[in-house]
């Protein structure tokens, strides 16, 4: 049977992608960001997942205001990196895993989560920046990826509680898939940042680090945090962090298994307007 082997959490700041694509990773400003991912790149090579289930949000790229799905699972064979207005990122196309994605969609919908199913979607920096951070600049991404898009653009995003429970349903869906695949689930976005209005540039290190602590040790309690706390304490765009609870909900300990091992933890301010947080948890 398939199993979730680990979860990865990371910010997906577009300027990080731009820095990689422009060859600026060695500049002092960016070195401090990328140094936090040296361990992770090697770890991912050693782990060799068969599939990555990647939770991200679209930033008015594939979804305009014409269609705003709260949860959308990609079941396509492949996804093209999007032109977000600066031209498409020069990164490999993303190969999907339609068979596992379709299985997860059917299982999760029967488990009371009403997903939107997407068979055609360009993917923006929300999906490709985490891959770049974890894989560098390969000719092809190391394995198939199932994109899972969450609406955090138009308020309200789904609650942290809903995301955490959805993660549990995704964990059950993966565990019921017959092929013995090693699946990683990634939660992306955050950490504290605000991109709009006179309060733009807000960063809350203390809150971010408490979020990381609780994500590791008390995801159940953390999942009950209301939206307003994210907005107030971590900025209007900090609400992206609810997506991390989907990945956390899929881990074994939530379903009664052993506690995960913290393989890596990193925090840095700033990348452009944003606090960068990163965590790797391995199932035991």
């Amino acid at each position, binding site marked *: 049977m398939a199993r979730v082997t680990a979860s990865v959490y990371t910010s997906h700041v*577009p*300027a990080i992608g*731009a820095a990689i694509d422009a060859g600026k990773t060695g500049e002092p*400003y960016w070195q401090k960001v990328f140094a936090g991912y040296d361990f992770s790149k090697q770890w991912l090579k050693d782990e060799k997942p068969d599939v990555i289930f990647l939770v991200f949000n679209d*930033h*008015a*790229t594939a979804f*305009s*205001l*014409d269609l705003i799905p709260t949860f959308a699972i990609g079941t396509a064979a492949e996804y093209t990196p999007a*032109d*977000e*207005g*600066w031209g498409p990122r020069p990164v490999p196309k993303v190969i999907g895993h339609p068979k596992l994605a379709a299985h997860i969609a059917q299982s999760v919908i029967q488990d009371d989560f009403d997903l939107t199913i997407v068979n055609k979607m360009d993917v923006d920096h929300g999906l490709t920046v985490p891959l770049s951070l974890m894989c560098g600049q390969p000719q092809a991404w190391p394995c198939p990826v199932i994109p899972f898009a969450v609406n955090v*653009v*138009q*308020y*309200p995003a789904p609650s942290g509680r809903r995301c955490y429970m959805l993660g549990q349903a995704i964990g059950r869906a993966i565990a019921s898939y017959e092929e013995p695949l090693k699946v990683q689930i990634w939660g992306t976005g955050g950490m*504290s940042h*605000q*991109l*709009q*209005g*006179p*309060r*733009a*540039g*807000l*960063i*809350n*290190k*203390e*809150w971010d680090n408490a979020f990381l602590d609780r994500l590791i040790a008390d995801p159940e309690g953390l999942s009950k945090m209301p*939206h*307003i706390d994210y*907005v*107030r*304490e971590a900025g*209007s*765009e900090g609400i992206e962090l609810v997506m991390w609870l989907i990945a956390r909900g899929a881990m074994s300990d939530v379903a009664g298994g052993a506690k995960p091992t913290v393989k890596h933890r990193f925090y840095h*301010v*700033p990348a*452009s*307007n944003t*606090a960068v947080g990163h965590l790797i948890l391995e199932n035991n």
Partner: protein
Amino acid sequence: MSLDKPYKDVPGTTIFDAEMSRLGYHLNQFCMSLMKADNRARFKANERAYLDEWPMTEEQKQAVLDRDLNRCISLGGNIYFLAKIGATDGKSFQQMAGSMTGMSEEEYRNMMIGGGRSIEGNRSLGEKK
């Protein structure tokens, strides 16, 4: 019962909720059209004429022409959509975000390098002295 909107008292912040989305639908869809290179070229060639193709309010059109992002947001614009205007102008996200704060580009960049805007005094209108 009316909707609970506790985020109304967060200073310097407009939450893009269903109400704002309704007000800003055409403004944001105009921004979305700038994802296509030929639309960007047409917009740059004659901004006013391009904006007049959209059923936006005059206030919204003027806010776009002025590149007044705070005004755009107050009229229903969302920053991820408005970012397409910045991309058309060749501006980075940091330049766009900074332009809304009343700080110079350099001041804003230095604030971020220094750890960002502090949360203290910025949680709610009541807290702000």
